[in-house]
């Protein structure tokens, strides 16, 4: 119990937009800002690292380096000077995904600024998802849409890369276009889905469904209890570590 009291009373000093606050040690930046009394409207969304609403930049006293992080996923530390970037302007192109081909042309037509990349690496240093942002931009630029889609998949659209890029690229919009191009035009449509849709259209399951809908609770219980369960497939996947 002694440990618990100690944890609760220990505080750190943080500076929110230049104003000093004492907050309990161990809180995330998001919770620290709230603890300090801010009822947030901007700069918070999922609270779980998925939405990118809480991008934050900070410096620690005595350190020249500018750091970034997600407020909901980063612990507030003593001596932080921080501010949130709840919005950063970035232009999204308007396109008809059906009319495009998965090629460099599509990327360059809507986001021609990608060719201005200086390969400075700033974007990959700031990405809170630790994505190789520079490489996905390079892949998109040269038309390797599959690679751009794969490398950018975990992007949460926080805009931190875009806020720091000297070439003024809107990375996450390029990534969005690349992924949709890949999934729509490169990946094969699922064959079993086509078959199932035909079966449904032909009414193959109608009678069975109607019967289930009419069945009383006891019949359903019985059917449910007796239904067979597909075994787990435990053969290690064919893909390996390296891909």
């Amino acid at each position, binding site marked *: 119990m002694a440990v*618990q009291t100690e944890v609760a009373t220990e505080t750190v000093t943080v500076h929110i937009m230049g104003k000093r606050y004492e907050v309990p040690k161990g809180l995330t930046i998001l*919770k620290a800002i709230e*603890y*300090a*009394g801010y*009822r*947030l*409207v901007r700069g*918070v*969304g*999922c*609270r*779980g*690292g*998925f*939405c990118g*609403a809480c991008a934050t930049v900070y410096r620690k006293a005595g350190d020249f380096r500018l750091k970034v992080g997600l407020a909901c*996923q980063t*612990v507030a530390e003593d001596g932080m000077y921080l501010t949130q970037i709840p919005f950063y302007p970035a232009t999204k192109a*308007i396109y*008809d*995904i059906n009319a495009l081909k998965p090629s460099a042309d599509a990327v360059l037509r809507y986001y021609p600024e990608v060719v201005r990349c200086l390969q400075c690496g700033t974007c990959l240093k700031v990405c809170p998802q630790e994505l190789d942002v520079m490489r996905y931009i390079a892949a998109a630029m040269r038309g390797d849409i599959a690679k751009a889609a794969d490398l950018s*998949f*975990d992007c*949460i*659209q926080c805009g931190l890369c875009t806020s720091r890029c000297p070439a003024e690229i809107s990375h996450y919009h390029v990534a969005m276009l690349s*992924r*949709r191009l*890949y*999934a*729509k035009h490169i*990946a*094969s*449509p*699922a*064959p*079993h*889905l*086509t078959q*199932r*849709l035909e079966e*449904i259209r032909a009414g193959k*399951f109608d009678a*069975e*469904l109607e019967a*289930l809908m009419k069945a009383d*609770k006891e019949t*359903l*219980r019985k*059917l*449910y*209890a007796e*239904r067979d369960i*597909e075994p*787990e497939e*435990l053969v*290690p996947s064919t*893909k*390996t*570590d390296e891909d």
Partner: protein
Amino acid sequence: MPYPEMMQESIAKVEETRSRRLRESFPRLSLEERQRLLEAYHPDYRRETFRPLAVGPNKGDLVPNELADLLEAKSRIDPDLFDLSRVDYETDVLIIGGGGAGTAAALWAQEQGVDVLIATKLRWGDANTMMAQGGIQAADKPNDSPARHYLDVMGGGGFVNIPELVKALVTDAPFIIRWLESLGVMFDKEPDGTMITVHGGGTSRRRMHSCRDYTGMEIMRVLRDEARNRGIQAWEFRPAVELLLDESRQCVGVILYDLETEEYFVVRAKAVVLATGGMGRLHIQGFPTTNHYGATADGIVIAYRAGARMIFMDTVQYHPTGVAYPEQILGQLVTEKVRGLGAHLINVDGERFIYELETRDVVSAAIIRECTDKGKGVVTPTGMVGVWLDTPMIDILRGKGTIQRALPAMVRQFARFGIDITKEPILVYPTQHYQNGGIIIRDDASSEIAGLFVAGEVSGGVHGRNRLMGNSLLDILVFGRRAGLSAAEWAKQASPGTPTLDHVRDYHRQLQEAGINTDRVSPMLLPDYTSEIARIRRLGGVTIG
């Protein structure tokens, strides 16, 4: 923050029993055993935390106290003072809520040639949909069928689901997956296009489709991108605070409140789609939650005030595996896919205590039993209790690199706090996750109020008393689409009368008659997480509201 010593001892036991556990199987519970476990340990059965509603169409029905507080509260609007004559915007279909259900509704409504506007509380896509990790169900493999899916849904829901809604859910499912595929959603696939599918709790076939462990995020961002391409407008930071009904009690518009400028907007619409999501941020019974910041039951509150009935609001889904350590991410989700991929749940002694893919309510109850009466929970330095989820097993079962490939979000989340889930287990405890019930709908997503359509987590009936994983992402798209289509069709022939707030006046009178004199106002819109001292200072030291 790697594990402290007090927890390391128990981890050693988890490792010790791992090779034996890999060989042994654990029995499933019979329906009777499940029921007994639920009654003894599931939070829904702690009846002292519920109360019967004093007013409204569900008067007398039990709901959680936290929700009752919002339903037995006044409107933010004074119906006698508010001026409805100034109309700020007119549209055919107004969609409340920019999550998955709302955005799907917008896309399908607009395709029918009507004007559409989305009004949402935070940014477009700040929603539970964005957070869904595990996957989306659809019976599209040869060994599966919509009928099997139907049976699984009914069994999971306690056989009380509304049959027509379940039928719509399972028969539209393959179509929805094809729709997503055609929009450019990047599903996990084999090279020939075959979907990689796994089990979820309560599934009899492997029918969980995924986009790594960012399934909801991928679906949400593609839908939003497509809607932007099609010129669909969204008003952000403008939540709905009240519906408008005409003299025949038909829904003809909404009052929105701008969170930043503090203005009220009157929007007239021929049809309204309610897609406001769930209520995790009410923290039922003090549980932490997996839900986003805006999950505060607003839709339930405003629809109920307008006379819409609710169903199954006395049951809440607790996800069995919320984070119990580290403290910073307490209550956040550890996706069920982790168990789907084979990880065991283990107590302090290194032993299994439940078959991991029982339905969520059952697994949650089993964990609570382990951590309370059985005293077999693992205690953290801040006094939280939990059980282990043995993640390293996944790579042993399925090959090295599987965890990294299939669960990048999970790996990253824990790595941020110094825990390597490919080598160490994670500590979990149930967390408030999903609103099983909601506003009653028909299979065309219409509600009992003319002109009001309801879709997604705010609706009730599809999942009965307990939703299965992967059926909610499906639900929001199946019924989001149906709501969009129905609303467009309605809007084309509707003749809306004059908007009024008579229903609010009525509701206030009912409250008074029931002897409820309160300062509480609802909807909540956003929770207040400021410290108690900050709240006291805000009120000049008078009271805490």
